[in-house]
C-alpha cells in the first residue's frame, strides 16, 4: 500500500460521502452541487492514478473530463432554471 494508493482510498471515501449527500439532498440543487463535487474528486483520482501508473496520457482524460463536467453542470442548472425550454 504505497502512499498514493492510500490517497486514492481516501478520495474514494470522500466521494462516497458526497454521494450520500447527492442521494439525501432535499433539493435538486443539492444534488447538482454533489455532482459538481464528485466530478472534481474524479479528476483528482485520475491525476493520482496517472502518478501511480506514471503514464501521462491519463492526464488528457482528466482534462477532457473537467471540461465535460463543467458543461454538463452548467446546462443542467440552466435546464432547471428555465423549467425545460432552454
Amino acid at each position, binding site marked *: 500500500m504505497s*502512499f498514493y494508493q492510500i*490517497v486514492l482510498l*481516501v*478520495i474514494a471515501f*470522500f466521494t462516497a*460521502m*458526497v454521494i450520500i*449527500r447527492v442521494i439525501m439532498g*432535499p*433539493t435538486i*440543487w*443539492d444534488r*447538482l*452541487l*454533489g455532482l*459538481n*463535487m464528485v466530478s*472534481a*474528486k474524479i*479528476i*483528482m483520482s485520475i*491525476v*493520482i492514478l*496517472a*502518478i501511480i501508473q506514471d503514464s*501521462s496520457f491519463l*492526464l*488528457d482524460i*482528466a*482534462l477532457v473530463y*473537467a*471540461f465535460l*463536467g*463543467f458543461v454538463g*453542470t*452548467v446546462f443542467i*442548472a*440552466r435546464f*432547471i*432554471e428555465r*423549467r425545460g425550454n432552454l
Partner: protein
Amino acid sequence: MIREALTVILISIGLVFMLFGVIGIFRFKDFYSRILISSKVETVGFITLMAGVVIKYGFTYFSLKILLICLVVVITNPLSTHAIARSALISGFKIKEEK
C-alpha cells in the same frame, strides 16, 4: 528526499481541505451556506493537491499538463457553482432565515 516529503505534506493538506469540504456539506442546514463553503474549500483542496503533485514531478511535461488541468478546474469550478446557485435563486428558492 525533500521533494518527496514536500509532496506528501502538500497532498495530505489537500486531503484535509477536501475533508473540510465534505464536512461543510453535511454540517450546514441551508443550501446556500452549503454551496458557499463546499465549493470554495473544494477548489482550494484541488489546488493544494495539484501543487503537491507538480512539486513531485518538477519541471517536466507531466507537471505542465497538471498545471493546465489545475488552471481549467480553477476557472470552471467557481463558474459551475455560480450557475447552480443562480439557477436556485432565479427559480425562487428562498434563503431560510436562521431561527
